[in-house]
């Protein structure tokens, strides 16, 4: 008997028990759809985040206090000393080939305008902060070097902060209270959407010097450096190390854009695999469902197996018939699952803020895993069927 016949027999058997076949497939359908959908979400988020980082330019470097080992979960020790604005100035003076050195400090506080108040993240930087932070103004201007030097009480608002605190009016020139101190709004930004540093739209931006004074902080959290030339990034990195080592020893870490990207990709990739793994478990459960129903099917059809053997079916014929039946269930379930997973990802990507990206590897992996589950869980019942003694099988009631 050839494969075509086996497939025909198997499909006919599946069609004879439509409701049961469908219910059995449901496990695989859900498993495959879940794998595709969850991996699509994972991949979508990963794409969006890495896209944002790449959008910042590839010649940015982030210098943070403390030692960080190689990737995620590497050795970490809490920073013993924080950087200061002077460190940033030192780098600007002593390292060649830099476009910008930005000391960054972030903290949260309450912003008040009249009787309205809003919990906001305050980001402090210098006049070159636009390298890291948004720079698309709707109106007004960014703060200037002189204002940084003078620690002026000026603030630029993110779009959400602007809308919430100044609904339906132009905030530029208005006064706002941050951490109990009055500030003048000098500009506000266009909406950016969710970003790496959290919701940048509800942040407010002030000079770092002002921030240190208002919040009584004498350190900064990060120094962001932009190299003039992306090709010279390794050279610049060495120079930075040379400047900072005498002051901090090994207690600082430089992340290049590439490293940050790698780190995040690792993290999000792991997350994606985890999601795929969880979904994969449901696929496995679906496979057990197939085995269960195939075992029932074999004992129900003992007599049929006896008849087939009596008229000349060999072990292989019976084995292949039942394996193909199991694989048929899982493959059909897999195809429906792909359709649902793909459709679901598309709907989610179109109608919710969750980014999704259906990748061919996720689809093919889910499909072949499903088919493999069918083979794996189909072989035992099929083997049982093929080993039946024709005499016993024919007598079976």
């Amino acid at each position, binding site marked *: *008997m050839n494969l075509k016949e086996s497939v025909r027999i198997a499909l006919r058997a599946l069609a004879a028990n439509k409701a049961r076949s469908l219910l059995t497939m449901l496990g695989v359908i859900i498993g495959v759809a879940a794998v595709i959908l969850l991996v699509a979400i994972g991949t979508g988020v990963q794409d969006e985040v890495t896209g944002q980082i790449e959008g910042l330019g590839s010649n940015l470097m982030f210098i943070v206090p403390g030692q960080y080992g190689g990737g995620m979960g590497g050795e970490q020790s809490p920073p013993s000393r924080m950087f200061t604005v002077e460190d940033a100035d030192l780098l600007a003076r002593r390292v060649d080939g830099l476009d910008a050195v930005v000391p960054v400090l972030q903290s949260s506080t309450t912003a008040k305008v009249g009787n309205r108040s809003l919990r906001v993240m305050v980001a402090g930087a210098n006049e070159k902060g636009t390298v890291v932070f948004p720079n698309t103004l709707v109106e007004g201007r960014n703060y200037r070097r002189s204002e940084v030097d003078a620690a002026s009480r000026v603030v630029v608002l993110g779009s959400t902060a602007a809308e919430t605190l100044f609904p339906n009016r132009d905030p530029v020139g208005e006064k706002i209270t941050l951490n109990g101190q009055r500030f003048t709004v000098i500009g506000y930004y266009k909406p950016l959407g969710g970003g790496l540093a959290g919701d940048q739209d509800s942040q407010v931006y002030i000079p770092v010097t002002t921030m240190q004074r208002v919040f009584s902080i004498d350190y900064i959290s990060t120094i962001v450096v932009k190299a003039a030339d992306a090709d010279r990034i390794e050279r610049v990195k060495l120079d930075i190390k040379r400047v900072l080592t005498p002051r901090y020893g090994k207690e600082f870490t430089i992340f290049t854009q590439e490293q940050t990207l790698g780190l995040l990709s690792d993290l999000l990739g792991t997350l994606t695999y985890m999601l795929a793994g969880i979904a994969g478990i449901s696929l496995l459960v679906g496979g057990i469902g197939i085995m269960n129903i195939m075992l029932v099917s074999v004992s129900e059809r003992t007599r049929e197996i*006896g008849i087939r053997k009596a008229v*000349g079916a060999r072990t292989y014929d019976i084995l292949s018939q039942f394996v193909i039946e199991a694989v048929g269930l899982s493959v059909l379930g897999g195809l429906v699952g792909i359709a649902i997973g793909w459709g679901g990802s598309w709907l989610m990507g179109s109608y919710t803020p969750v980014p999704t990206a259906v990748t061919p590897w996720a689809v093919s992996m889910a499909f072949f895993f499903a088919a493999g589950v069918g083979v794996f869980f189909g072989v035992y019942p099929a083997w049982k069927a093929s080993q039946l003694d024709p005499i016993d099988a024919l007598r079976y009631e």
Partner: protein
Amino acid sequence: MSEDRDAPRRVVLETRDITKRYRLEGIEVEALRGVSFSVRQGEMVSIMGPSGSGKSTLMHIVGLLDRPTTGEVVLEGQDVSSLSPNALATLRNKHIGFVFQSFNLLPRTSAQANVELPLVYAGVSGAERARRAVAALERVGLGNRLGHMSNQLSGGQQQRVAIARALVNDPSIVLADEPTGNLDSRSGIEVMAILQDLNAQGITVVLVTHDERVARHAERVVKILDGRIQSVEIVNDRVLAAQEMRMLPAEEVAG
């Protein structure tokens, strides 16, 4: 062993001193204790015996569904007593046609598909398969029931489908195990008439039954008791089913 009525007729199947022992719930059962007999080309022979006589075991061995513990089974000149189950399956497919008491058709499957089944395992292609299945069904008078599902057919019709299935591979032996056991008398007579008719056309038929009257449809009756051949008789007054049919009241023809 019977004398040859048509001397040159070739031996199709022969058992040589076969025994069969098996354990049933821990108890050793000796089902056959040295059975030797042969079936010749074109003959119709009955294996008869009460239940427990070993006739079912003998039928399984003759039908290549089982192997003897000792002794030889020779089919078409080949010793098949120690072949593997798969090799036996292939030989069954080629040489044996089964007709069972309980019909044993595939449920929810058309008459034609049921008859095609042995050809599927023989590797015959679709068109040829259909042609031969239709021819076999016409031979048992069911040319107009090709597409009927097995459960839409009467008992007599189902048994005729089973006979067509047994014939379709041009087997060396058609092995009928109590073929009338589950049928009303009229259908039983019809089925026996078909078997006798096929035998008249040259097909070898082995009939397994406990019923003396059914057994006497054959030319020869091999009586089995306690795992041994008790007697071999030539049937002088064969029951001819075709004649019985004519004696039945001429009411509706079942089928």
